[in-house]
């Protein structure tokens, strides 16, 4: 039921939008409901560009999923306002992955086989993203793996020709963040890791940086996805007396862990950090408990013209500031549609060629580009400090970027990544 509703909503948005543009062109705003509903729809019915959006709207990452979709819809608006991509208006079809690989594949098949989409944009959890990636390679459908940070998406034998990753890999995040933490706070680290693909590669990337700096792992624990009580783990951490506890948790798990880290008074005893944190979690953690140093693919404080425009557009549409999840949704969809535009064709093969090696304004200080041999988007990567207490000036003023690395400095080199993408 939710799915049907999601589809209807997106269709309604599409209609509203095409209605507005049609009315604008005719110079008549009071065209009436029937004109809005039937006129433009029939004209564009054959020409519409169908894009599937697969994001979690339920489960532990629901909030992140919603943000990614919201960001993607900003890009859809931009293209539809100027007549679509490759001359076709864009219609989106949204499905809920429920943060479950099985559900995601089932919904993906529905989008591909029944709706007939040639492109899928989205997902948050990397295990879900890997499953969708395999499906899309098999079905020859382009997949923008919007929010998956596990290295596997673009590294090694699970990377695919039809899959592109708009965000940073865990290794990029770790290299930008871990070296900063190690130099500033010490080299005895304890690891708390979410027990699945993303958590594991996040931990491993931090460990590599730590080893290169001659640091020491003083303990580690794996926690099941969806854990709400970390007290027993935190007692172990405190007993091991590390300089830093590296927390590869995300979503509700990260919220619970940081809250309890504060409640046990451990903030005075050690530093905390990890591969990811962001606005949608920091808002729930609350300004008094907000702390630590984290990898961030983007932040509202990135001071570029593109970022400011995106932030303003997002605020205008949704009434709140975008998290970096929204940024990723935007970039993923924007890049897909501009690829279609450049290819002048909806044919996924031509779009892949148009994307590979393409360099673009990714709203950051340095240009971003798609590496042709692994489909990783190479881009500036940030380490953010979570602000707390009196230094928080407004409810969204929760992070400050303390370090930035250029994409090529932190991404896997060709020697480090044995990937061999399939032939087209």
């Amino acid at each position, binding site marked *: 039921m939710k799915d049907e509703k999601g589809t209807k909503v997106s269709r309604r948005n599409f209609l509203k939008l095409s209605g507005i543009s049609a009315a604008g062109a005719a110079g008549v705003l009071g065209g009436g409901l029937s004109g809005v509903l039937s006129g433009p729809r029939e004209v564009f019915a054959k020409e519409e560009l169908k894009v599937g959006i697969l994001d979690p*709207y339920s*489960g532990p990452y629901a909030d992140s999923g919603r943000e990614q979709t919201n960001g993607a819809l900003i890009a859809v608006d931009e293209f539809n306002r100027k007549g679509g991509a490759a001359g076709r208006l864009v219609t989106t079809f949204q499905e809920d992955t429920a943060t479950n690989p099985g559900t995601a594949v089932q919904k993906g098949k529905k989008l591909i086989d029944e709706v007939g989409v040639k492109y899928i944009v989205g997902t948050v959890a990397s295990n879900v993203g890997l499953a969708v990636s395999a499906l899309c390679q098999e079905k020859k459908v382009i997949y923008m793996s919007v929010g998956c940070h596990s290295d596997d998406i673009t590294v090694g034998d699970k990377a695919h020709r039809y899959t592109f990753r708009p965000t940073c890999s865990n290794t990029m995040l770790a290299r930008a963040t871990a070296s900063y933490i190690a130099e500033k706070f010490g080299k005895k680290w304890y690891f708390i890791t979410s027990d699945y693909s993303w958590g594991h590669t996040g931990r491993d990337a931090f460990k590599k940086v730590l080893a290169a700096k001659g640091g020491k792992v003083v303990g580690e624990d794996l926690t099941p996805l969806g854990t709400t009580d970390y007290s027993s783990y935190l007692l172990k951490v405190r007993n091991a007396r590390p300089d830093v506890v590296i927390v590869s948790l995300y979503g*509700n798990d990260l919220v619970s862990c940081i809250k309890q880290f504060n*409640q046990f008074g451990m903030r005075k005893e050690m530093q905390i950090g990890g591969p990811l944190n962001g606005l949608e979690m920091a808002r729930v953690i609350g300004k008094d408990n907000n702390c630590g140093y984290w990898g961030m693919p983007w932040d509202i404080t990135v001071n570029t013209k593109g970022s400011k425009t995106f932030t303003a557009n997002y605020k205008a549409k949704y009434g709140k500031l975008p998290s970096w999840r929204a940024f990723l949704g935007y970039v993923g969809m924007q890049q897909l549609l501009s690829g279609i535009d450049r290819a002048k064709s909806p044919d996924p093969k031509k779009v892949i060629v148009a994307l590979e090696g393409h360099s673009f304004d990714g709203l950051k200080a340095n240009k971003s580009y798609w590496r042709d041999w692994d489909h990783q988007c190479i881009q500036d990567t940030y380490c953010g400090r979570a602000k707390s207490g009196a230094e928080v000036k407004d409810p969204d003023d929760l992070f400050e970027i303390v370090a930035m690395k250029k994409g090529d400095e932190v991404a896997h080199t060709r020697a480090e990544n044995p990937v061999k993408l399939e032939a087209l």
Partner: protein
Amino acid sequence: MELSLLLSQLFNGIATGMLYVLMAMGLTIIMGTMGVVNFSHGVLFAFGAYFAYLIAEKAGFFGALLMAPVVVGMIGMVLERGLVARVYGKDPLYGLLLTFGLAMALEEVIRIGWGTAGLPFSAPGFLSSFIDLKIMFYPAYRLAVLGFILLLIAALWFFLERTTTGKIVRAGIQDSVMVGILGVNTKALFTGVFGLGTFLAGLAGVLAAPMAGIMPTMGDNVIMPSFIVIILGGIGSFWGSVTGGLMLGIIVSLCIQFVPAVAELSMYLVMALVLLVRPRGLFGEEGLFE
């Protein structure tokens, strides 16, 4: 291995187990009296937290602690009158399906009403410090929750053992048909018991909210452990719930310390063991499972 760490984990296990005790008590009196396995108990736990969030804005944490569970208890009574009462005496599967569906529907109500994102919620300022227990520093809030639940258990025990209404409830758990034959209005009794059970779920939700945050799925993570607690302790048994909850808390805590790989699995292993050796649970009455 330091002794202080072992003691810390034991103590922490007891403190976290207390919340399970509260959840299990509500479940077990409902199951014992009406024979309904209430799967919506977890989402009512979440409701407790969400109402606490609403009420705390106006009346502070303690206002929320007083009022939110009462609201949840009243919702429980409405659900019982309107829906759950219809499946009494039928195949237990009906009750199971009904409350399972109810749980999913109510979780969607939370998403529609409060959104999919979590909500920030903190303990009152004077409880946000920590207390030196010699073996470790422990959050004052968790200590307060531990003490509060202990008092509540004593009050519940007094109610069930020493008051006439309490005796009727206990008699209902033993044999509700006979209680009816003796002239007690079982309809009102059942509604009251369901209200009390859901009140306890709501109360557990309020108490848990400052520890882990408020989110729509927060009930999912406590419902399974709560069922395991009553299977360990025995359905309908007061002291069974207490013992089972504490056992569960301690076992999970110690497993995280010594064999973290089986921490998640440990509670199911213990449940399987109890079901094999003593299907009625540690303090359970013969008959339900054997």
